[in-house]
Each structure stands twice: as C-alpha cells, then as structure tokens.
C-alpha cells in the first residue's frame, strides 16, 4: 500500500450555467485526503457536497482548479478518459444501490471488470466476483437477483461491485439513505472493516451519527468547506450493533 495523499483538490470551482443565472455550486475548495482515510462529506442540500462528490468521482469536471487523483491530474480529461479513471481507480456506492435488475449478484459485481482493460476469461470473472461477494458476507448468494435480496444485501452487492477492480478510493453517496438504522450500522461496519484493511473511503451523508463512523468529517456550506475535523468520539459499528435490538435475521 502506497502512502501519502490520494486525493488533492486545489482551489476547485464549479459553476453551472442555467439560463441567465450562473450557479456557483463549489466556490474554491482545497482538500487533501491521505491514503487509508475514511472521510464523511457533510452538509445540507445545496451546500455543494454532491457537486464536489461528482468531481471527486470523475463524473464531472471542475470549472477551474486542479484535481490530482493518485498522483495524476484528472481535471482536464475527456469523457472516455474519465470513464477509464472511474473504472480503474474508483468504486461507487449509491443511495439506491443502482444494481441491474433481473441480473444476478455475481453478474452485477462482474460489471466493472467487463468494462475494464484487463481481458479476463469467464471463469476468472466469476472467481473474482465470488471472492469479493464472500468478503462482504454474501457467499452463497451469488446467483440471487436484486429482487431476491434485502436492502442491506443489495447494498453489499453494490459495495462488492465497487471493490472488484481494487480501487484507490471508494466513493459512497448517502449509502445508508434507503436503509433502516440497524442495516445502516451494518453497512458502516463493512466500511470500517474495509477501511481497517487500508481502503480509502469518501462518504457523503447528511446524518451526523452516520458521519461519526468515519475518521474525519468535512462539512460544507454554500460551496465552501466550513469545518474539517477528525472525529474524536468515533462510533464502532460492532459495538453499536450489540447495543441495537436485533429486528431481523436477514443478516447473511
């Protein structure tokens, strides 16, 4: 595992042109994230955190400023180059899971491998997908379709999909937004385990208690970073789970 910063934003601006009005969604954000960090990006809606997340996720380009990801400047890459960066260096976890319907968990996890530059055989794809599914506790459910899985299980499939290409950074956009509180803690548990293994995680959330599972919180307001601090009283998902009443046995 390399050391040093994996994400470096230098005075990043993002302006949207809607009609005659310019919307300054991000107004000069500079941010450094070291390898192995677990950062929660917080803020009310309209604070610019989603826009910043899109830039961090290489889904969007900054209007001005520099974005250095894994020692490479990605601020001026074109659509296809950004797609390759997303494929090789980033893993995405979405609020609404975004799994392909009527497609098995394994095939969902294989998806980033299919769009990658490495040409794997079907057996290799399967082996890799099954290994990652097992690592998020879904061994034995490889052939289940999303409709046959609970919300928490679907989000684990999505996490497995994010991990399958060994990304530099996992980006999670409100990963617990569609989950009940116990399942949310379980997902946070998985993130903490991944982070303990050295995986860098950036998570957008508006819930302060969910943010407390991260090591560092970055709070945004009006397109600027308002606060940036290390979490002192960090929640441990395993401890919290013991405290919560078990409401279902869906845990795999």
């Amino acid at each position, binding site marked *: 595992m390399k050391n040093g910063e994996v994400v470096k934003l230098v005075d990043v601006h993002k302006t949207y042109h809607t009609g005659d009005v310019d919307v300054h969604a991000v107004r000069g954000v500079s941010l450094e994230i070291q390898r192995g960090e677990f950062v929660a990006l917080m803020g009310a809606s309209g604070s610019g955190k989603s826009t910043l997340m*899109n830039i961090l*996720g290489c*889904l*969007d380009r900054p209007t001005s400023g520099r974005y250095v990801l894994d020692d490479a400047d990605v601020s001026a890459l074109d*659509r*296809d180059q950004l*797609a*390759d960066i*997303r*494929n*090789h260096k980033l893993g*995405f976890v*979405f609020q609404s899971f*975004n*799994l*392909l*319907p*009527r*497609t098995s968990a394994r*095939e969902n996890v294989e*998806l*980033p491998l*299919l*769009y*990658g530059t490495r*040409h794997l055989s079907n057996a290799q794809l399967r082996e890799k997908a099954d290994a990652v599914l097992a690592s998020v506790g879904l061994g034995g459910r490889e052939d289940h379709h999303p409709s046959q899985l609970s919300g928490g299980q679907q989000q684990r499939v999505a996490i497995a*999909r994010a991990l399958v*290409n060994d990304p530099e950074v996992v980006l999670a956009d409100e990963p617990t937004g569609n989950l009940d509180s116990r399942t949310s803690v379980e997902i946070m548990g998985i993130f903490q385990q991944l982070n303990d293994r050295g995986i860098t995680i950036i998570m957008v959330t508006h819930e302060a208690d969910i943010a407390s599972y991260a090591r560092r919180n970055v709070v945004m307001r009006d397109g600027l970073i308002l606060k940036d601090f290390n979490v002192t009283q960090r929640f441990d998902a395993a401890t919290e789970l013991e405290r919560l009443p078990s409401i279902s046995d869906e845990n795999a």
Partner: protein
Amino acid sequence: MKLGSTINIALRALRRNKMRSVLTALGIIIGVAAVIAMVGIGNGAKAQVEAQIASLGQNVILIFSGSTTSSGIRTGWGGAGTLKIEDAEAIRREVPGVIAVSEEVVSTTQVAAGNQNWFTRIYGESADYFDIRQWPLADGAPFTDQDVRSANKICVIGRTTATQVFGNEDPVGQILRVKNVPFTVSGVLAPKGLSTQGVDQDDIVIMPYTSAMKRVAGGTTLRNINVQVGDGSQIAAAQQQIIALLRQRHNIRPGRDDDFTVRNQQEIADAATATTAVMTVLLGSIAGVSLVVGGIGIMNIMLVSVTERTREIGTRMAVGAHGRDILMQFLIEAVTLSSVGGVIGIIFGIGASQILSSYAHWPTLISLSSIIVAFMFSAAVGIFFGFYPARKAAALDPIEALRYE
C-alpha cells in the same frame, strides 16, 4: 471493451424482456417474409416468361400482317391480311441466313370425332413449324412438305385436344372432323403447358397451312410468318432484309409506314421480362414498406428501452463504460432484433411462397441473392433505426442518468 462481452450484455438485456423482443422482431419478420415471398413470386413469373419465350424457338423472327404504326386505319398486328403466301416464299428464297419459314393461319372452330366434339384453335403451318418451335411429337409423326404442297387432310393435335376428343384412345391414325372435313391425325404433340397469358398451348390442332386455308378458314392471307435464322448474329441483318423485301413486294413508297410488323424473339423476350421485372419491383417495394414499418417499431422500442434503462446506463457509465460501449450495446440489441427477425422472416417467406406455389399454383423462385439481400437489408434496418436511440443513450450525462427515477 471486448465485443464479445458487449454482445453478451445486449443479449442479456433482450432476454430480460422476452415478450417485447419477440413482438418487436415480429415487425421485421413480417416485413422480410413479405419481401421474400413477393420477390419470389415476381422472379417465378419472370422465369416462367423466359421459359415460354425460349420455347418460341431459337433465333426466330415473327412477321405479322398489319402494323401497329399504320397511319389512318390502325389494325394492330395480326389484323389486316397483308401477308401473302408469296411473301413467305420470297423470304425463303431471297433472305440469306434463313433456314426455316412457316406460314401461319389461325382460326377457331368445332372439331369432332365419334360422338365427342370440342372447340379448339386450328393452326395452319408449314412442315418447318415443329423445328422452329422446337416442339417434338409425343406420339406419331408430323406432316411433311408433300402434305403441305398437296393440302392433304392431315393434322397433329395437342394433348388437351386429344384427351377431350379421343379420351383414352390412341388418336394416331384416327379421323378428326374439322368443320365436317375428315382429317387424319398423324401425331400427338408433346405437352407444353400454359403460355404466359395463361392459354393452354396443348389445346390445339396443327395442320398444313394450305389445308387450313382451303378447307377450314378460307381466305388467302396469312396471319403471320415465322422465320428462323441459322445464326443469332444474322438476326438483325435478316430482319432488315425482310423489311426491305416486304416493303418492295407491297409497293410501299419511302416515307410510308409498313403494313406489317417484324419482331424478333429477343424483342418479345425483352418486353415480357421488362413487364415482369416491373412487377417484381412493385411487389418488392410494397413489401419493403412493411419492412420499414418494422424498422420504425424497433426504433420506437429502443427509445422506450433507453428511457426505461436510463439509470442502468448511468450505472454502467459510473463503473467505466465509455459512450462507445453504450452505443454498441444498444446498436447490437437493435441489430440482433432485426437480423434474428430477418432470419425467421426468410424462413417464413420461403414457406409462404411454397404454400403459394403448391396451393395457388403460382410459380415462385427464391434466389440465394434475394435471401442475402433480405438479410443484409434487415440488418441494415436495425443499424439505421437503432442508431438514433443508441446515440441518445451514449450521449446521456452519467450524473443525471444515475439520479433518473
């Protein structure tokens, strides 16, 4: 990204919506089947016409009395009796390259034998006729030049006439009364079947033209003269010489129209095949319209599919799909629908044309080229009508596509 996995992704997507895929392909299936069947009918008709024309004989020039361009009274060919026996003899004598000439008179009348009678066509011909038309006898012998010179009461009859008048009896050597004149049947012609106009060519009595003129039809003029030239390259020259000869014999001054019409076999063939070619194109293009409608169906479904799967497209882009990968995926879906529809349509089209030939007795001819063209065209329909929706999918903004509800 590997083309193989794109194809795999596209096929998976089609399988997720089986019913929709089948119905969409149905538009193409019907279109291609219609094209195959219609072009098959057109080509069948064309092949039949060609076979009929070939059965006129080789290197044949036909001279009809009357003219299609005569000013004043226009009679059309075969109308006014302007061709004389002497004209035919002059052609036989004076035009180089001519190897056979048959004077022809035609009438229709009642014929009878025993207690059976039948209304049929009487053709008066010379003995060369059977060579010119390449029309062999199934039984017996044709009449001879001697029979023609002597206007003997002898004839050969077609298969249909033989069956109608003599039933199962052997007609050869029997007496056939034509207008109450007893003719000896010397032979039965090999069956030729229907002509291009649907006339039964075997419903016929052929006798020396001298006998026909003297004993059956009366009159002194010929309806037409059939001329055969020995070498195909001499046809044009022979045709010119015949025209010059007949104009001279008929005392037609320069500048006046012919009172006869000369056609060679190639001209007749060209006219007939041109007609059927037009028919083939017409039938094919009407069927082609349904193929285009099928293509629009594909476009419609692909547009719905792109909208419906916006989030899926966003997800694919987020995990690293290029616009090109998305474009290919949707294009392959469209082409798969249209080309699988095309293959099934070809099978249905072949089946439909075989049903038409066996039940409606329409000749059909399915050529390999029409199958290949139909398949290529259906694949092209998929590309053409699939391209717009696929490009729309590829151009989606991943951020908006991911959030699409």
